[in-house]
């Protein structure tokens, strides 16, 4: 630190001298001006104005205590109550021993007795005070996260170790706290909103750590650690504190926070490892919006390694075209025989070492780190190209639907991207279908509806995916701009065994008829289900009963069958 000061102490610091006596002011000015830039104030009010104006650059205030009007004690009190002004050191000028003690207790950094010491003594005291305060600021700046004021990770780990030394027998919980889809929120609502969100969470966590006798830090962009004595229900208690700190804007977009808890930590582990465990638990529920909290268990390390591997390999996977677009046919079952109507594009990963990987495994991982955006666009482009290719080969269009997420719809460039992809492939809007999950409409629905309306006005057909898993009210359903309802597979699974499920499907069919919507049933696996759905009036069927998702060449088998069927009909 000494070397540091030798370097930075070269420039002239700014000093404010506050004294109602012109003789005293001039005398100090004379002493200080060779080494300092000296500002002068003749009373307390004048001093406060200068202090507020110069607070960022003022190195020290030399303050006379007894002055008419606002006196030095009042100035000191006002400064101590202000978070920023408090950081400026004050040296009081006084001839009374009792005043020295009082002012030091009130927060003064030092005192200079009157009559003044010789100039060198005064200069040395001022320099020492400035050095001390600047070094405190440097330490604070390095140990605290500037955005939230919480400890940074390195200092937090040190404090956690100290905590253990002070309380060697206390049972402790390590917790990791993350904001779900923070990167997406940052993109959609802007960085300043993201910062506000991080600060709010910082305040809530700091508040909670204080109440629960624990410590906290921000360890990365949207991640926080807490180290608190066991016995607290951290997810529940902290969620309540967060709710108290949230702004209306945050409440409206339903900020979700997830928790990973490593309860009653093993003291044999270093603190770093304890928080790795908490973080693993937290990451294990990434993308799973039903689970708010997860507790660490040892198998999580294996799963984490697998996710890391998938993330690391994605780039190469895209470059080497390891991601395959599969197609699952949808059949129109309204006539005597099922007829191929369209298909859904679904992605698979043919990993050279791990084999065929299901999207259930890699999509949540990619959603969390934002890579899903690139993968989605790869699938959209590939599907559009395939539609054009089949059209060229077979002379008619098999429309293909692609999945778009809520995040995609919120992107300003989305409509341009979709139209660009269609143009590039040489297909029309009527040949391309977009599947949007029901849950996408539930948050910020006005904006989503607006985008979907624009897409429909371009001629694109919109399918509402996973219908029945979200929260659309009937009222909302009637105002949503959609063309097709895709019944969630949950309704279909037991339709042949449960009267109630069948009734539910029939009810949805009535609503769909009233709203003039087509209905697709997905997840149809057997003859019984097929028959019941046909009887209920479902328009289209998708599921293993007809075909599992297949690569493009296999899909062509269905297209050829449809050609033959059409020829037969003609004959």
């Amino acid at each position, binding site marked *: 630190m000494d070397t540091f000061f030798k370097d930075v102490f070269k420039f002239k610091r700014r000093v404010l001298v506050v004294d109602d006596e*012109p003789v005293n002011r001039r005398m100090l000015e004379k002493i200080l001006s060779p080494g300092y830039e000296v500002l002068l104030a003749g009373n307390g009010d004048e001093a406060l104005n200068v202090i507020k104006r110069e607070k960022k650059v003022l190195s020290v205030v030399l303050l006379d205590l007894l002055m008419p009007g606002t006196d030095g004690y009042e100035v000191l009190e006002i400064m101590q109550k202000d978070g920023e002004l408090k950081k400026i050191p004050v040296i009081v000028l006084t*001839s009374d021993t009792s005043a020295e003690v009082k002012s030091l207790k009130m927060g003064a950094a030092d005192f200079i007795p009157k009559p*003044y010491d010789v100039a060198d003594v005064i200069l040395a005291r001022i320099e020492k005070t400035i050095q001390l305060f600047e070094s405190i600021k440097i330490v604070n700046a390095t140990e605290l996260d500037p955005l939230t004021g919480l400890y940074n990770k390195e200092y937090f780990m040190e404090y956690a170790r100290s905590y253990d030394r002070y309380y060697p027998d206390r049972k402790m919980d390590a917790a990791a706290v993350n904001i779900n889809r923070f990167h997406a929120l940052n993109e959609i609502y802007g960085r300043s909103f993201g910062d506000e969100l991080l600060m709010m969470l910082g305040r809530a966590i700091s508040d909670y750590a204080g109440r629960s006798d624990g410590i906290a830090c921000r360890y990365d962009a949207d991640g926080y650690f807490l180290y608190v004595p066991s016995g607290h229900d951290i997810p529940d208690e902290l969620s309540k504190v967060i709710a108290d700190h949230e702004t209306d804007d945050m409440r409206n977009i339903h900020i979700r926070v997830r928790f990973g808890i490593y309860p009653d930590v093993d003291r044999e582990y270093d603190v770093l490892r304890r928080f790795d465990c908490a973080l693993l638990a937290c990451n294990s529920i990434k993308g799973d919006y039903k689970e708010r909290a997860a507790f660490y268990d040892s198998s999580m390390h294996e799963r984490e390694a697998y996710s890391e591997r998938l993330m690391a390999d994605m780039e190469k996977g895209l470059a080497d075209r390891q991601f395959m677009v599969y197609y699952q046919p949808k059949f129109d079952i309204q006539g005597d025989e099922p007829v191929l109507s369209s298909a859904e594009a679904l992605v698979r990963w043919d990993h050279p070492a791990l084999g065929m990987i299901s999207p259930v495994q890699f999509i949540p991982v990619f959603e969390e780190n934002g890579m899903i955006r690139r993968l989605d666009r790869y699938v959209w482009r590939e599907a559009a190209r395939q539609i054009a290719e089949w059209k060229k080969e077979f002379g008619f269009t098999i429309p293909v639907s692609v999945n778009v997420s809520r995040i995609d719809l919120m992107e300003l460039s989305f409509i341009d991207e979709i139209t660009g992809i269609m143009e590039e492939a040489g297909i029309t809007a009527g040949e391309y279908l977009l599947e949007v999950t029901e849950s996408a409409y539930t948050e910020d629905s006005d904006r989503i509806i607006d985008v979907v309306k624009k897409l429909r006005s371009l001629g694109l057909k919109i399918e509402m995916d996973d219908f029945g898993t979200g929260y659309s009210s009937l009222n909302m359903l009637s105002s949503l701009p959609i063309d097709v309802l895709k019944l969630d597979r949950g309704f279909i699974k037991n339709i042949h065994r449960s009267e109630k499920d069948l009734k539910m499907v029939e009810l949805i069919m009535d609503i769909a008829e009233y709203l003039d919507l087509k209905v697709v049933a997905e997840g149809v696996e057997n003859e019984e289900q097929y028959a019941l759905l046909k009887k209920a009036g479902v328009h289209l069927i998708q599921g293993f009963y007809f075909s599992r998702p297949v690569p493009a060449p296999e899909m062509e088998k269905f297209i050829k069958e449809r050609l033959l069927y059409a020829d037969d009909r003609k004959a």
Partner: protein
Amino acid sequence: MLTIEKLDELGCDTSDGLKRCMDDREFYLSLVPGAFDKKRYEALEKKINEGDLKNAFEDAHALKGVLSNLAITPLFDVINRMTELLRAGEKVDYGPLIAEMWEVQKKFEINL
């Protein structure tokens, strides 16, 4: 005109006062007249006579500060005694002290 020699002759410790002025005699001498400003002593006397000991203390205290910094020892001695009585709110007869104050002040003032 007050000179360093004259101030010393009148009992001041100018070498002490000069140390606080970086030994700049001219600067020191430019400050000195402020310590004998008649109006300030008149104001102090008036407040004492009116029984306003609190404000009289503030005036005396301020003068004491200036006199001590400039090392105007004879006048400092009087004002210092007065300040301590006023600080304690002593309702004593300040007449003799005031007379002494003027006597010393005038010794300097006539040399200004």
